[in-house]
């Protein structure tokens, strides 16, 4: 291992680094780790040096890398961001560049740390309060007045949501069923067209072959038109019918083919 030769990887350092890194499991994310590191500065969080903190954090990540330990992605994202912040804090501000200054970003990070620390303390104070069932108690005997019995029904929000989820999930899996009532198949259209073409000696608009009851409702009209057109093509193929259209989108006309009644 090449790293073994670097001075940082002395046994003592490695042990110390490992101790902290093993602790990563115990940290609740990068912000928590930063808060812990910040305690080594022993100053009020409002006066913390974010630059020093960024260096500490980056050194930590570097050590983890040397130890070939895998850190979760969010620790690495924070490292990248802190490296960026560090460069912003060190370099003079570029007037050309948009966006917040290094000082603003550092101030926000300090605010986040202070807020996290404050919520930590608040949760400790909350849990230190007297608690029902531990420090103070509700009535032990709930009254034995079981004379009038009335049944009420109850359900929880969870029941409600699960019920709804159940229906909606079932819905997702309902097999796809075509609505046959409003669909004309080509077979249907062929059947009615075959019966009618004997009378089609002259060019007639195809739309006049739509069966009764299929012309008013737009949905029914659409399916009947498509089926009738497909059927007419089939009959042309069979040599029983001729089709013509004078121009694009002009009405399609049909007639029985000469000599093939």
């Amino acid at each position, binding site marked *: 291992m090449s790293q073994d030769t670097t001075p940082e990887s002395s046994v003592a350092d490695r042990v110390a680094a490992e101790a902290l890194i093993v602790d990563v499991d115990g940290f609740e994310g990068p912000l928590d780790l930063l808060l812990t590191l910040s305690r080594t500065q022993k100053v009020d969080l409002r006066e913390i040096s974010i630059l020093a903190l960024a260096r500490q954090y980056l050194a930590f990540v570097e050590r983890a890398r040397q130890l070939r330990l895998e850190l979760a992605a969010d620790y690495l994202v924070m490292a990248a961001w802190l490296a960026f912040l560090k460069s912003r804090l060190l370099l003079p501000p570029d007037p050309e560049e948009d966006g917040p200054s290094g000082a603003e970003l550092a101030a926000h990070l300090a605010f986040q740390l202070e807020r996290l620390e404050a919520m930590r303390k608040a949760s400790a104070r909350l849990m230190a309060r007297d608690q029902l069932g531990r420090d103070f108690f509700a009535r032990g005997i709930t009254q034995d007045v079981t004379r009038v019995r009335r049944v009420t029904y109850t359900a929880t929000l969870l029941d*409600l949501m699960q019920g709804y989820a159940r229906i909606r999930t079932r819905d997702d899996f309902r097999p796809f069923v075509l609505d046959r009532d409003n669909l004309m198949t080509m077979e249907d259209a062929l059947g009615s067209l075959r019966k009618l073409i004997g009378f089609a000696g002259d060019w007639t608009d195809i739309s006049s072959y739509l069966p009764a009851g299929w012309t008013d409702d737009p949905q029914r009209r659409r399916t009947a038109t498509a089926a009738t057109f497909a059927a007419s093509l089939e009959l042309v193929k069979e040599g029983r019918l001729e089709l013509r259209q004078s121009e694009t989108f002009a009405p399609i006309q049909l007639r029985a083919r000469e000599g093939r009644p």
Partner: protein
Amino acid sequence: MTDEPGLFKAPPIAEQERMVEALLFATADPMTPAQLAGRMPHGCDPVTALAGLRKRYDGRGVQLVRVGDAWAMRTAPDLGYLMSHEVTETRKLSRAAIETLAIIAYHQPTTRAEIEEIRGVSVSRGTIDQLIELDWVRLGRRRMTPGRPVTFIVTQTFLDHFGLESARDLPGLKELRSAGLLDNRPQPGGEPEEDDGQEQLFGD
């Protein structure tokens, strides 16, 4: 009172009364003086404390009563009538009723036909009646469609019971899924339309 001089002085009798009061209030069963003494600091005299406490509660809404060798606190018998209608047996709502309620809550205002379409089965009359009787569902405005069907909506009582500020606060399908309430079975052909559906429900 105490026959041992003891290393510790027993608390003043007023304090002992407080202790007996708290103990009898919190424990589920009546307690004998010996049991009380076992819980109290060394040198306490529960019998005297019980006598004081009994006097203190005399004529109050709650009384100290003797049950065999033991003591308990009970509400005054003359006030029993206040509690009489308190005893209610609660039962879980049936699955059909929950589903119907859920559909009304998520789709309101909705008609019976719509509920049946979503559930895929007919809704028995009793189900909606039960929800109305629970005061969780009420009639909304009639739908301005042919037949002018009645619609159903959820009530304030419903919102109170389920701890909701409004029916719009019900979590959407996506949220239900992430909460593990919806099976995450693979969806044939993807699932892009669900949240649209949800959006429509809640969208303005």
